């Protein structure tokens, strides 16, 4: 099962390597890791999507808590958070297909951020499910490159006040 963890860390150099080193040495499988500064410039938030059972996630939480610059670890409960991922998708696009792809982009609410003679690049920020729908739709045209940020997540206000 997939779990989404939110990890607040001190914004120091070297913290990322301490956290990422943990995954390999404790043999945790992670799908994605996204890092960015929070509203407090001294603190960064890592959003980690990890795969495993309850035992693995509990261990992951506990081991993360042992890393000195880690301030707080939360595993979000299903339905209690909003998650998004930003992706850039470069798709093959000869002139006669442009309209098709523009329609898909419009349908899926993706933004066209670059166009060339043979390609079109889409910017898409949504859930993983919607990302998969979009890529399924684009596959027939030939996807040349995909760049993804990894999931970021925020807790719903209703959940954080529980």
């Amino acid at each position: 099962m997939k779990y989404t963890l939110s990890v607040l860390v001190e914004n120091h150099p070297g913290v990322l390597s301490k956290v990422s080193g943990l995954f390999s040495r404790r043999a945790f499988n992670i799908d994605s890791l996204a890092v960015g500064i929070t509203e407090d410039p001294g603190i960064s938030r890592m959003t980690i999507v990890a795969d495993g059972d309850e035992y693995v996630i509990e261990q992951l939480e506990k081991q993360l808590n042992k890393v000195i610059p880690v301030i707080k670890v939360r595993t979000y409960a299903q339905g209690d958070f909003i998650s998004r991922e930003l992706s850039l998708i470069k798709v093959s696009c000869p002139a006669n297909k442009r309209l098709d792809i523009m329609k898909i982009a419009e349908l899926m609410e993706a933004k066209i951020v670059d166009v060339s003679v043979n390609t079109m690049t889409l910017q898409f920020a949504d859930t993983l499910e919607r990302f998969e729908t979009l890529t399924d739709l684009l596959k027939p045209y030939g996807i040349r490159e995909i760049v993804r940020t990894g999931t970021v997540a925020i807790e719903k206000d209703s959940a954080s006040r529980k």
Partner: protein
Amino acid sequence: MISGAEIMVKCLQKENVSIVFGYPGAVICPFFDYLYQTDIKAVLVRQEQNAAHSASGYARALSKVGVCVATSGPGALNMITGIATAYMDSIPLVCITGQVKSDVLGRDVFQEADITGACESFVKHSYLVKDTADLPRVFKEAFHIASTGRPGPVLIDVPVDVQQAEIEEFVYPEKVNIIGYKPSVKGHPMQIKRAVEMIAEAKRPVICAGGGVLTSGAKPKLREFVEKTGIPVLSTMMGIGVMPSDDPLYVGMLGSHGLKAANLTIHNSDLVILCGARVGDRAVASPDQVVEHANVIHIDIDPAEIGKNMKTSIPIVGDIKNVLGHLIKETDYKAPAEWVDKITKWKEEFAPKPQFFDGFVDPKSFISKLSEMLRPKAVMVADVGQNQIWCANNYRIRDGRFLTSGGMGTMGYSVPAAVGAKLARPNRDVVAVCGDGSFQMCLNELATIAQENLNVKIIVMRNTVLGMVHELQDIHYGSRYSITELDTIPDFVKLARSYGIDSAFASSNEEAEKYTKEMLKSDKPFVLVCNVHPNTSSK
């Protein structure tokens, strides 16, 4: 103005460090140069790994942070095994390494190694100091982190230019403020209440005590708890010494190399109270089997250890000393006599048996005899291999310490750790027991012992093989002794004497005891070589 090197030394003084173990090198020179001008003693080891082991022996014998220092590159890298050994056994160390100049970091210059990166997975925390002004805070934090919560080694890597640069003044912080580091020590009252209820229901309870009991200084509390409740006690290898060996309620060390009586006890119990024990694979090979018939109360200061290797009925996160204090107050439980009687019978039935061979010392009965000859507070340091098992199962500990590399199983630990222990406890008997294999991994420290004129007694079990693996080859590999025979063994007696250390060779238990008596009378170091038959088994 004050230099980084001077600040580093001043920080050590602020932390009441009186001794460091180290080895010099170009980029740690500013530090050692300033240290030389103070009354902090610097002990020159003969290889950096031993600096960490000596600091570990010192730390354990004195319940204080041990400090080791090495230079960059190979010096720091040599120290890694010692750091990892301390990490596995939760020993508080501050390890200081010199580093190349910060403006050439990452350019693969002479003697450059990414030591903070290399040590990431076996330090409690590490620092690469880029600014001289950060040094006081870093040292304050390092000592705090190393010694609190679950202790462990902290590495401070200091580029030479950071040691040389000067700042206006030295101010040592009064307090540390690390927002993500607040170990919980108290133990949740609700959980303690549940534990008391669970203990009350138990018919066949047992305490399994690990190194955490000693680290926490909870030995008196544990003994009080045992006295009150009459619950029998097993120990892990790291926990040896929590109870006196001759206490009727102490069963012995459990695990794959432990006593049969101890293993029978845990496997027949209906309640296991784990105290500062992490249920390592050597201690409990099949924790799943145990939890089938027993409830588990796990007391540990490190929440990550609870439930990691064994399913827990009641987790209690906290300092064992505090938690046991509450349990003593709140319980009026008394363990059933028939359970204790059963264990006593197992203890008698399955006691370790000596193996006598003509012309050889039986190490098991000799170690048992040795325990009586040492003073009660003696520090016994066992190395790794068969010698470790002989000591663990036959040393009759009273109120002293039993030190060994339990988690990592690092050969060559005993002699340097004994050096540290002796410097920490000059008035106690300090004995290192090693095999001829492990001795050859650390005999360079004879020079340190001679130079410091340390009254350390070394007992070498010379069985001409790497006994532990040799035995494994007998059991699992059709007695094919692939590289386990030590065909060329130096004359250890002559070798010791060449360092100016007296030595003797014993070929029987009578001789071994005679020499032991003599060596314990003298205040000089001594190497006693015991001829041991290669077929002497671990158990």
